């Protein structure tokens, strides 16, 4: 068995970006797309500060979250460990991009050229590849060179014709490529003779990219080293190492979670309400309209919308996006029939499917390993309870329901609000130490208005409806609107404002010749309190 991997020697790297440039040439990537790049990190504080250059890119993980989430099976893993993208399958949903904790994936929707304009320079025109537009792209470990080399009896990592361009170009001898499974390979020997780490190893993706930070001593034994202080030394965002706000999923993606949550919550509320009195078919249509609108919005965000409706179903084995789509496919006819015939039991089944849809959405976020504010398990309950609050709130607000139905639903809403608030608190707590400073800052600023206007106020309104029965419909509607709006706002904020990515970190600063080498740093993490 072969496992291709890369080793970056941080002691040698000087941050010259020759690998970055060389990768851009070999792979003809457009402006601002850098499958390989080198970060410029600082760790520590003046005057005890270290500056470190860290090559990053796709880590070709053994357990790649990008592949698991991919709904189209465009992202795959070869037997030799290289993670690939089939541009002809990819729908450009960018789910892989938010699932990657190494920010390795890019998506470019239209042709872009170095000097702008509608046509590129000759070299750009010569290398233009329309297949790459609207789909995910990333480092391939120059697999075409590797394959060419193997087919011609060459050794990747040793023979330049068979090696990745970045490795070939490295002027400091910092980048190495080879078979990690072969104990005699160049990279295995380096790993044997040096102390190394892998970035974000705690996330369990088993990256195939190792960083050398120190030579082992003569006996081949690791020296005592200072424990990495991963959460205490990050500084600033210069050098592009600190987490930044992901740009792959915007308000349209948020719209899917809003529409999906509200629609499926509404279906559940309808099912509950229909135990008391039959509701108009229009309510079911409204619920489906919300779900449909959400899906429509997120479809607008796909880079390849015409292949998306089919290819999105290709990976139900592991992708929550495929599953969400499949459940949606079941939900629409089922709910329609249930609503049309007004059958309570069928409606309950539809509501259960809607809950399944809502659960898929929640898990969809949780599987986004690249976004700390999403990947926490606590997000599942938050998304679920919020969907129910939104749906119930909407029904209360627009339902004009008979008093017993109304009273029952407002009570349910009050209970759901309490549950959502508790979910929020659990969610917030879960982020301590697991999300970057900027995400925490956003979440922190959300807490008070979310609690106050999204929970306390509607609960007070509901309570006042009990006391002042005459005003109940009005205050109830207001409470419903509050519950609904708060849910929408919360999701909008989580998807578009709190969605800072993982950023980059090093477990150790490297030694530099006869000195240095110590605790690492994680820029953008651990400074907020």
């Amino acid at each position: 068995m072969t496992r291709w991997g890369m080793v970056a020697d941080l002691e040698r790297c000087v941050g010259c970006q020759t690998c970055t440039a060389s990768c851009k040439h070999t792979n003809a990537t457009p402006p601002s797309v850098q499958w390989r790049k080198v970060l410029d990190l600082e760790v520590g504080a003046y005057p005890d500060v270290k500056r470190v250059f860290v090559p990053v890119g796709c880590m070709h993980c053994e357990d790649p979250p990008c592949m698991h989430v991919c709904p189209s099976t465009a992202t795959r893993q070869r037997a030799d460990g290289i993670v690939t993208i089939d541009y002809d399958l990819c729908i450009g949903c960018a789910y892989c991009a938010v699932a990657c904790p190494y920010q390795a994936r890019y998506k470019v929707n239209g042709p872009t050229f170095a000097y702008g304009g509608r046509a590129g320079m000759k070299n750009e025109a010569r290398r233009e590849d329309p297949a790459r537009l609207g789909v995910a792209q990333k480092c391939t470990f120059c697999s075409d060179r590797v394959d060419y080399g193997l087919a011609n009896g060459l050794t990747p990592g040793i023979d330049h014709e068979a090696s990745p361009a970045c490795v070939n170009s490295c002027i400091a001898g910092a980048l190495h490529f080879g078979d990690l499974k072969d104990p005699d390979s160049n990279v295995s020997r380096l790993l044997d003779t040096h102390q190394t780490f892998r970035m974000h190893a705690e996330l369990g993706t088993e990256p195939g990219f190792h960083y050398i930070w120190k030579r082992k001593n003569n006996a081949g034994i690791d020296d005592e080293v200072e424990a990495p202080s991963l959460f205490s030394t990050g500084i600033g965002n210069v050098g592009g190492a600190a987490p930044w706000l992901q740009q792959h999923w915007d308000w349209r993606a948020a719209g899917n979670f809003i529409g999906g949550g509200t629609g499926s919550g509404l279906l559940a509320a309808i099912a509950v309400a229909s135990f008391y009195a039959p509701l108009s078919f229009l309510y079911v249509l409204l619920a489906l309209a919300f779900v449909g609108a959400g899906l429509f919005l997120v479809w607008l965000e796909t880079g390849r919308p015409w292949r998306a409706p089919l290819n999105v179903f290709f990976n139900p084995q592991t992708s929550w996006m495929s599953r969400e789509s499949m459940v949606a496919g079941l939900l629409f006819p089922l709910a329609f029939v249930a609503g049309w015939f007004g059958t309570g039991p069928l409606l309950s089944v539809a509501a259960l499917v809607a809950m399944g849809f809502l659960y898929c959405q929640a898990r969809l976020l949780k599987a986004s390993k690249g976004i700390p504010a999403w990947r926490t398990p606590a997000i599942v309950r938050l998304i679920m309870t919020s969907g129910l609050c939104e749906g119930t709130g909407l029904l209360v607000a627009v339902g004009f329901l008979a008093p017993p139905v109304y009273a029952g639903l407002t009570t349910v809403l009050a209970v759901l609000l309490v549950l959502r608030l508790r979910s929020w608190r659990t969610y917030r707590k879960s982020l301590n130490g697991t999300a970057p400073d900027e995400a925490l800052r956003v979440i922190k600023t959300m807490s008070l208005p979310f609690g106050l206007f999204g929970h306390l106020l509607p609960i007070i309104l509901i309570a006042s409806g009990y006391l002042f029965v005459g005003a109940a419909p009005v205050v109830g509607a207001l409470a419903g609107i509050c519950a609904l709006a708060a849910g929408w706002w919360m999701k909008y904020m989580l998807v578009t404002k709190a969605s800072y990515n993982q950023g980059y970190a090093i477990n150790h600063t490297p030694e530099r010749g006869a000195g240095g080498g110590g605790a690492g740093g994680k820029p953008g993490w651990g400074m907020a309190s």
Partner: protein
Amino acid sequence: MSKKDPQARRDVPTYCYQCVSGPDLLTVGVEDGVATEVQPNFDSAAVHPAAGKVCVKAYGLVQKTYNPHRIKTPMKRTNPKKGPNEDPGFVPVSWDEALDLVADNLNECRAKGLKDESGYPRVAASFGGGGTPTSYMGTFPAFLGAWGPIDAGFGSGQGVKCYHSEHLYGEFWHRAFTVAPDTPLCEYVLSFGSNVEASGGVCGVSRHADARARGMKRVQLEPHLSITGACSAEWVPIRPKSDPAFLMAMIHVLLHERKWEELDLDFIKHRTSSPYLLGKFGYYMRDPETRKPLIWDANTDKPVPFDTPGAEPVLEAPFLVEHGIEEGADGKEWEHVNERCQTAWEKLVEHTKPYSPLWASQICDVPVKTIRRIALEYLEHARVGETIEIEGRILPLRPVAITLGKTVNNGWGGFDCCWARTLLACLIGGLEVPGGTLGTTVRLNRPATSRQASVKPSRDGFMDYPMNPTDKENWVSRPDVRNANRTLIPLVANSPWSQALGPTHIAWMLQNDTPENWPEPTLPDVWFVYRTNPVISFWDTDSIADTVSRFPFTVCFAYTADETNHMADILLPECTDLESLQLIRIGGTKYFEQYWDHQGFALRQPIVETQGEARDFTWIATELAKRTGLLEAYNNAINRGAAGVRLTSDVVDCSLDEGTEHSVEEIWDAVCRAASVEMSDGKNQDGLDYYREHGLKTIPYERLNWYLYPELEDQGLRFEMPYQEGLYRIGKQLANRLHESGISWWDAQLDEYEPLPVWQDLAALWERALEENFDIDINDFPFWLVTSRSMQYAWGGNADIQMIREVASNIAGHGGVIMNTGRAAELGIGQGDLVEIASPLNTTRGRAILRQGVRPDTLVMIGQFDHWATPLAKTFDVPSMNKLTPMLLDLTDSTGSGADLVRATIRVVEKAP
């Protein structure tokens, strides 16, 4: 996955010499006639010190070729008014018309006389990038050679942005136009602001990476944590421009805190002037008969001429010289009888006594124990007494070196640093020996191709140096070029490089302000500009722009619009890097870490079709020669070697017929054949076709040639260290000459001609100069503003390449002004805030980049981006310190150099969004 050959295309070998640390050998992939990809030239791995790897700048060449902003036809100015705010109104013209216009102006100059009424050449030329344009200008040097006197003294950064003190004093003391550690053997490097990981090229980077992996320790002393600081074992955030104090304190530790036996006393006694006896007037005590400096011989216990066979020099004792002579300035002599003398060594010991680590600590803002520790580490790593065999010869092994960076190495204090660095090498016997501090090329001494061959004995037992004369008969009293290099700077010699190494800012300064008793400034009638952009790359750029706009006829070889050619009369688009033909020398020893085990030649060749109407530089040169009636002289210059190789040879004659016009290919085929002949003693005559296919041809180069020590040992010579008797005398003579001419405005510079450097408070010097010239309170400018090189841009002239901009953006600092995070917080400045940086001269704006790795009293602006005409670059909105740095005589040292720093203040204009 496809199994197709990813390299199914033509890979054409060529070179990149965009920066002084080149050339890099590369191949360019061509698909369907289009250049698409740069790769290392793997075939050169065996001969290239960095295995044929290529610097990031070379990857910009593909975009450079197809850049839509290129000027692709000759252009003529239609707006007679010139200035930054004037639209030049360039209109396309034919090559015939453009060349005729240039030739008409040149012919007019020739008709009026090659020199003007002030005695200055009517034709001037400015080239940038530390001489690298020569590798791109084909046979243009032959045209200039055929023309006659040229003023190459209008600098575009030379003297203030180079390693100026090192260039001059380095050549003087050890034939070291540039200095590098013997990195493959070195184990300990003290780097004072030297930024080898940014500016040392692929050889520097790869060698230092190998050295680190070997366990070499490098300590970086610099106000900010540069790329090189990042790659060093230790960073010492020293106060700007205080480096001489640190170095002096190191000398103090070695001389006053350690036993001298720990030093290399053998080297000190036999390879330096330490044992030379001094008279009371500060000159060597000389033997009355031979006029040779005296040493005290332990064997005979009496003074003997320094080169007496078998003499054992004594460094310290009471010396009573019965009869001796001191030779002062201008032939003045003193005869001494029974004179008590000191040796130069004793003088040195006495001189350095006050310069203790405690003293330096205050100046440098570095703890005493750090200074002392570093001095001792330096001594410990020197391995005094050890030897190594290099190609059969036993040589001292001293694996320690000191390197000096820009700003440390120019302007006031540069002399002190170079002297101290060279002396520290001498004290442990580490100058020009394996592992130690090496010079790597000569530019002022001759021949340029061999440091060893340039070593000729002086009468005092040192290497003779081609000083510009200061004696009454021979002093160049009337400057022959506008920067007066030969008049004011004896050390700058008189090689083809000397003008560019003179006080190049004086050529600009004196255009506006003529000092007393100095020829009236004149503008050159014709100014050629190539690969340089002084309007943004020198200091006080507003003033430079003003001067340039007054030049009557400027011819710019133009790739895109830029700030200097905005004021041009004619733009000539030459074929760029991947479009034109030229053969250059590679290998041997060149700048910095470019010392090879091979030497030979590499070809740059047209790889793709020329874009637009651009023309090969050689074609342009030939046309100009033809149109100015200089074809024969031009061909003659080529035959004599102006294209890099002498075509006439005793072995095989490759020379061109001087009466005929030759095509570009004919010329370079002859040069290629001559190169092959030179390398093979005539056995091989491979011409252009061979080089087109293979890209290069080399022969072995002896590693012994990396070291100058063997040559000195063979000739029995000494390094002129520590005592500067010669410079002292020259300074006195120069003072006499200038004063005789009524010139007193160079007096401060004359004070620098000291036998041993006396500490001067450099910070105070800067503060005083700024206060006096600008009527400001220096406390209003609390920061030192410095600059730093970046590998992506250094020397590249590539600010308009999008990909370079993109990848450079990954490195902090390219987008604004770097300042200390804590200090910024005190001032209410946040990351990315728009700030205004003001010096006493001017203001500029940019984004604040907050970093921990910079002193709280220092601001850093990387590179020099202040473009307003260059496409793409003018959109960067990045501050440049060039606009803020004044050109002041007060801040010009005796070599005519200034240091790239100024005092500044900073304030927020607009908070970051």
